[in-house]
C-alpha cells in the first residue's frame, strides 16, 4: 500500500473509514440491539480495509456525504 498522494484513502470518492474502539463498538451494538454479525460486512481484501490495516472482526465507521442528511454514518464488520 502506497502512502501519501497515491493512497486511495486520499481520493475524494472514497469516504472516510475508521476502525472504532472497543467501547464505541459496545455502544453501537447496544443502540441497535444487535450482535456483530448483524452489521453489514466488508471484506478484508477490500482496498480501503487494507489501507487502514483493519483486522477481521474489527468494525469500521464510514462517514459518507449524503444527499439527504449532509453526513451519514455507516458501520461495517470486517470479514475474511
Amino acid at each position, binding site marked *: 500500500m502506497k502512502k501519501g498522494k497515491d493512497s486511495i484513502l486520499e481520493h475524494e470518492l472514497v469516504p472516510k473509514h475508521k476502525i472504532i474502539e472497543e467501547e464505541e463498538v459496545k455502544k453501537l451494538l447496544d443502540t441497535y440491539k444487535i450482535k456483530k454479525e448483524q452489521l*453489514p460486512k466488508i471484506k478484508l481484501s477490500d482496498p480501503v480495509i487494507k489501507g487502514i490495516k483493519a483486522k477481521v472482526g474489527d468494525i469500521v465507521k464510514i462517514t459518507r456525504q449524503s444527499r439527504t442528511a449532509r453526513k451519514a454514518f455507516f458501520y461495517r464488520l470486517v470479514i475474511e
Partner: protein
Amino acid sequence: MRTKKIKGVKFGLLSPKEIRKMSASKIITADTYGEDGFPIEMGLVNQWLGVIDPGLRCKTCGGRMGECPGHFGHIELAAPVIHIGYAKLIYRILNATCRKCGRVLLREAYFLFSVSDVELESDLKREVISEKWHKKFSDNDISLPSNVSVAKEKNDEWVITGEKMFIIRKENKKLNIYDAGEKRSFLREIELQREKQVGIGEAVKRVFKEAAKSSVCPYCGDYLFSINAGGELENSLNKCLMSKKLKKIFETGGHLLSKNPSVIKEIDNRWLITDKNKISYIVKKGDNKLNIHCGTPQKDIKYEKPTTYMEIGGEEREKKRRLMPTDVRERLERIPDEDIALFGMNPKNARPEWMVLTVLPVPPVTVRPSITLESGQRSEDDLTHKLVDIIRINQRFMDNRDAGAPQLIIEDLWELLQYHVSTYYDNKILRLPPARHRSGRPLKAMTQRLKGKEGRFRGSLSGKRVNFSARTVISPNPNIDIDEVGVPEGIAKELTIGVNVTERNLDLMKEVVRNGRKHPGANYVRRTDGRKVKVTESNYEVLAEEVDLGWKVERHIRDGDIVLFNRQPSLHRVSIMAHYVRVMPGKTFRLNPAVCPPYNADYDGDEMNLHVLQTEEARAEAKILLAVQHNIISPRFGRPIIGGIHDCVTGLFLLTWTKRKFKHKEALEILKGIDIDDLGEPTGTFKSPSGTDIEVPYWTEKQIFSMILPSGLNLQFQGKAGDVIIRGGELISGVIDEAAIGSFKGRIIDKVFRQYGEEATKRFINDSFRLAINYILRVGFSFGISDEDIPVEGKKQIREEAVHGAELKVEELIRAYEAEELEGLPGRSLEETLELLIMQELGRAREEAGEIAERELGMENAGVLMAKSGARGSILNLTQMAACVGQQSVRGERISRGYQGRTLPHFKPGDRSANAHGFVRASFKDGLSPTEYFFHAVGGREALVDTAVRTSQSGYFQRRLINALLDLEVKNDETVRETRNTVVQFKYGEDGVDPSKGEYGKAVDVDEIIREVI
C-alpha cells in the same frame, strides 16, 4: 398428523432399474379406450396409473379420484435414445473420456523426486511441513506454496494439500514425491467446494475443458511388447530418461521415436513416454516384466444438434462414423465410478449412461388428464398424444427388426423414435420441427409445461387466480368522488360479499334476499347446516322468509362497499387502491379523471380490475392503508400524485386568469354539485344588463375559487404565471394552474393535505374538478385545425426571419468551413464543430419560430392556454404544428445516413445544407415536403424503437430490483433491516425522513413556518 421436516433435496437421474421399480404398469398398447368405452389394460390410460373419472377406484392403491395421487408406468424402448435434456452433457462427457477404456482423459499423479531423510519422514509422521521440506522442494525447482498441510492417507502414503497437491509415498525405503496430477487435484477441488457449499460449476467446466485437450489416453492402449523388469532399463525409466538401449528396442519393434521423447514416471509403477508427434506409450510393470502399450489415440467427436454424435478420423481420414445411442451408452457405461465425481455427479444418484434412455417413465394419468367434450368425445392431453406416438413407433421398430428389415429402415425408425421421445420432453428444440397436433397447433411438451412465464413455476406456483374479481373498460366521470368507482349493474350482480346474518342485519339481509337476483339482491345463501342454496327466480320469496340468524348471505355489492381497484402493470403501490362502490348503469367502470395519474390510466380503451374484499379484516386494512385519499401524497417524491389534469387545470386557469364578475345565479351555477352553504358577501354591484340602471351584486372569480378552499388556508408560491397568494382561505392574487392543483406538482393540494388531512384534500380535489368542469362547460373550450393558423405577417416573419435567416447562417458556416476559416471548438474536430454550430443555429431557428407563433396566436388561443396552464401539451408541440417542425435527429446528430455522401438522391453528394440533413422548415399545418416527410419518419422511427426497447428493459430492471429489495423493512429504530435482522441502512434514507411526511425532501420547511407565524 406427524410433521416431517425436509432434511435435504437430492437431485439425480432415474436409472432404468428405478423406473421399472416405480412403474405400476408396463404400457404396450398405444390406444387409450377400447370400443366398450373402458380403458384398455396396459394402455396409456390404464387404471393402474390412477383415476381421473369420479366413482372409479385406482387399481394400484385403491384410492378414489382426489385421493390417489397417480402412479407411474413405463415403456420398454426397443432401442436406446438420447434424452434431449442431456444431449449436450453427453457430448461433453464423450469428449472428456477415453473412447476405449472410458477413463477421464486427465493425468494421473506423476513422479517428481525422491528423498531419503529420517528427519523429513518424522515430519510427515507428525503431519507437519517443516522449512526443510520447503527447501527440498525448491532444490528440485518445484514451488511448494507456503500454506499447505499434510495428512496421512494410508500406510506409507501422505498427501500434501493446499493450493497445489502432492502425494508422498514411502517406496523402497525412499520417500517418493509425486505431483498429484490433474485428476486428483480436480477431484479434491470439487470435494472441497462441496464441503464449503459453493458452486462446483466452474471446476467441472475446467475438467471438461482440460480433458477434451488430450489426444491420447494416458491409461489404456494396445499391447505392443514386453521387456524384462529391473536392471538398466527400469533404472533409466525411473530417472525419467530415455536410454539409447530402450530406444533401440522400440525401433526394432517398429516404433520410431522422435528425438528426446519425454518420460514421466507415474505412480503405481507406470511410465508414460510421449514423443513429439504426440504419440504416447504406456509402460506398465507386471509379472516382473515391463509391458509396453501404445496409448489409445482419441478420435474427434462432433455433436450435431440435436441428438447426433459423429466420430471423425481414424485410419481413413475425414471419415465420419455416426455413434448410435447404443454406442454412446456403451461408452458411458465404461466410465468408472471414481471418475464420475469429476463431472460433479454422484455415481450413486446419476450414472451418465442413464442419460441414454432404455426405458421411458410414463407419467400418471392425473398429470395428463383427458377432458370430455360436450359432444361426449374424449380429448386426450398433449402428453398422452405424444406417448401414443412413441409407443406406435416403438412397436413398429420392434416389428421391423424382428422381421429382419434392412439396416436403413431400422435406422430411419430409430431416428423417428428419437424424434418422438425428444419432442415428448421438449417441443421447442433448435433445428427440430415441433411436433404438431392434428389441427396444426404445436404440442405442449414436458419442458413447455414448466418453463417461462406461464409455466408451472412462474404461472401456477408463484401466480394465483382469484374469485370475486371483475375486469372491464374504464371511462371518466368527474361527478363521482375520487375515492369512488362506478360499477356497472351487471357486474354488481355477479360480485358478492358473504355476510353472516346477525341480529343487527337480519332485516337488511331478509330484504336483500327478497330482492332476489335483482340489484341489491343475493346470489346464494348458506343455511345453518352448511347447505348452500342458490337464490333463483322461483325460490327467493320463500328463502327471504327463512333467512335467520347464523345464515350466510352472499349479497350483491352495493353503494358504499369497499373494493380494490387496480390497473396493470402494477408498478408501484398506488397501482392498487381501495375505492367505494357506486353502482351505475352502463357497462364500464367509471373513474374520476383525477385518479388517472397513479394508475397511469387513460380512456383510450384501458381495462382495469376490481376485487371485492371478503373479510372484515381486509376491509379495515383497505380502508386504512389503501384508500385513495390516504395515497394522495406519493411516498416516492413527497408530492401529490392525485390532482387536477387536463380540463380541470384548463377550467380553473380560465376561471382565474382574467378579472370577471359573476351574478348570483351564475355563481350558483358554476358551483353546482359542490357542497357549499353560503356564497358570502358579494364584492360589489354592477349594472346588468349593461346600459340599464339595474344594479346587481356580483362575485369575482377569485371569490368563486376561494369557495372550495378550506377556511383559514395560508399559502404563497410561485405559479406558472406569477405568484399565487392565498390568505385566510381566500385567493388574493395569482392564477390557478398546474403548479397549484395539478397532479405531481399541486402546491395547494399538498398544503391542504398536510394542514387539513385526507378528507379535506379529497373534498378539495373533488370540488376543484367539478368547479373546473362547470366553468369550462359554461364558457366552452375547443381546439381545432384553425387554431393553428397564424396571420400572414406572422407566417412571413417565421419563414423569412427565423427559418430563412437560420438557413443563410448555416450556409455561411458551411462556406467558412470549406474555406477553412472555421475555428474548432476545444476537443472537437472541425467537422464536429461545424455540425454542432449548425445544430445550434437550427435549434435557435425553431425556438425563434416558436416565439413568433406564440406571440401571434396569443393567450386567447386554446393551444397556448393549455400549454401555459400546464394542462396538456407544450409550446414545442404548438411550434411544430403552427410554425416549424425543426431539425430531425438520429442519435442526437443531424441525419446523415442513406447514400454515399448524401441522405437522399434529391441532394448533391457532400451537400451540408440544412435541407439535405433533415431540417424540416414546414409546420405540420403547412404540410411537409416529400424529403421532409422522409426525414421526419427517420427521426420518428428512432423514438419508436427507443421506447420499445426501454420499456422492456426497464421492466426487467424493475423486476430484479423488486426481487432484491422485496423484504427490506424499516424497523421502529429507523434502521432498515432484512429478514435475518441484519442492518442494511442505519437510518432510513440516511436522514430518517419519510418523504411523504416531510416537506419536499426535508423534515421541516423552515420558510413556510416563518411565513405562517408572521
